[in-house]
């Protein structure tokens, strides 16, 4: 069972599977994190979702995230991402990388991640409680 703090429980993730048959999934991004977005909907390429995350690589990449995202923090100011479902993290990192979701630090951090790296990070963080 994944554990959430009360803030995360209220968040909704809806993945409309195969809404578009041309291998694009639409993920609705609502109330994921504080901060604004350009759009509530993003198209997440299926190729990202089909990748297997290398958790060992993810652990190394994650050391960069842990400077700010604390394992047992309150999530004040900077959200706790430990133990979050992989699909949420993939969506968020993708949205930051593509500058759909706003936050300069996160856009910069995600800006240098490949699809493989995004999935590696998501796989690693999902596995933490």
């Amino acid at each position, binding site marked *: 069972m994944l554990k959430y703090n009360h803030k995360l429980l209220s968040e909704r993730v809806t993945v409309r599977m195969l809404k578009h048959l041309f291998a694009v999934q639409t993920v609705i991004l609502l109330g994921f994190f*504080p*901060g604004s977005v350009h759009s509530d909907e993003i198209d997440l390429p299926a190729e990202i979702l089909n990748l297997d995350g290398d958790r*060992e*690589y993810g652990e*190394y*990449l994650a*050391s*960069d995230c*842990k*400077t*700010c*995202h*604390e*394992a047992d*923090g*309150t*999530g*004040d*100011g*900077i959200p706790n991402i430990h133990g979050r479902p992989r699909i949420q993290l993939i969506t968020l990192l993708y949205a930051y990388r593509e500058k759909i979701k706003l936050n*300069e*630090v996160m*856009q*910069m*951090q995600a*800006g*240098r991640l490949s699809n493989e790296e995004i999935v590696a990070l998501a796989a690693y963080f999902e596995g933490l409680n």
Partner: protein
Amino acid sequence: MKLDRRNFIGTSAAIAAAMAAPRVMATGKPRVVVVGGGAGGATAARYIAKDSKGAIDVTLVEPTRNYYTCFFSNLYIGGFRSLDSIGHSYGNLATEYGINVVHDWAVGIDRGSKTVTLAGGATLNYDRLILSPGIDFIDGSVEGWSINAQNKMPHAYKAGSQTELLKAQIEAMPQGGVFAMVAPPNPYRCPPGPYERISMTAHLLKASNPTAKIIVADPKPKFSKMGLFQEGWGSHYSGMIDWIGSEFGGGNVSVDPDAMTVTIDGEVTKVDACNVIPAMKAGRICEIAGITEGNWAPVSAHTMQSRVDENIHVLGDASAQGDMPKSGYSANSQAKVAAMAVRGALTGSKVFPAKFSNTCWSLIDTNDGVKVGATYEATDEKIAKIDGFVSKTGEAADLRKATYEESIGWYSGITADMFG
């Protein structure tokens, strides 16, 4: 005395031998000594101990029992944080991570025999040595000031009692009094630090001493986040701050700590409190180790290994690495790359390509936070910047508030990442 484990067993009582026995069985364990328990050293020690799961023997040498972070020390001056809230002990690193924390100064390094000598007389052997001693000041860089004058004109650029003293002196200023800062030349730790300090000093004075004046003598023509700070000084502290850059003689400065005067480009001003931030160089232990070139210790960007000695890694402010600013965030980022390289070399664990990042948040006034950040990669020549951002002038108040709140989250995150 040589406090090497074999001698220790050989010369100590049976009970000590029994207690140390498990360690002795593991004499084959590679040894890492980390000098300096700050942003770079504490992070490196923790990551090596945590990720090697006991396969590496880690000793951390740090003289202070309580490390006060320079980051957020300006917020203490402004009244946004207590001093206690920026102090951290090494208890978790010892008990949770099994790090041997030794509260002492490293005073000698013999690169041939791979040993570190401590002020208390002990000698530590290492397979890899990590130096993260932060900065020391360059003697004579501000005419009239020496380290002996640090109580009259504090630098407060190593946090703790110096910061406390500076705040007390600002609070004791007479109504309408003058506060002066002598800002440092590049490169120095925390490029926005002096200007965040000016903002926090102005915040403090605005409430208790609104007719006070602030003068900054700066040897530079411009500084980090200058447009953002100047915009904020204009809107929050109008008429209070006089910044004198190098074009206006700000670099031509001397002080007289006994007379409490500051002379800028020939003009003598009587001051009530004065913060002198001298020019900086790598912590002295780097010079003692013979690994500096000029004022800093050059390193390889891939591993943070000294260009002079591959058994030594230098982190944080003391290193000359390329494009990263000297910040706590940078030191923490570099420490993780070094920790991975050290584990790879000593235990054969997997080594990935180095990646670095940095963000420096600054507070200008209540809920008015700004930030500057960048990502970096390792090239053969240096740590090279890839991409970056800086907050913009004229941003909405709610964004500035969110930026400040983010900095609080960062502080809590990075200190947990350093001290466990």
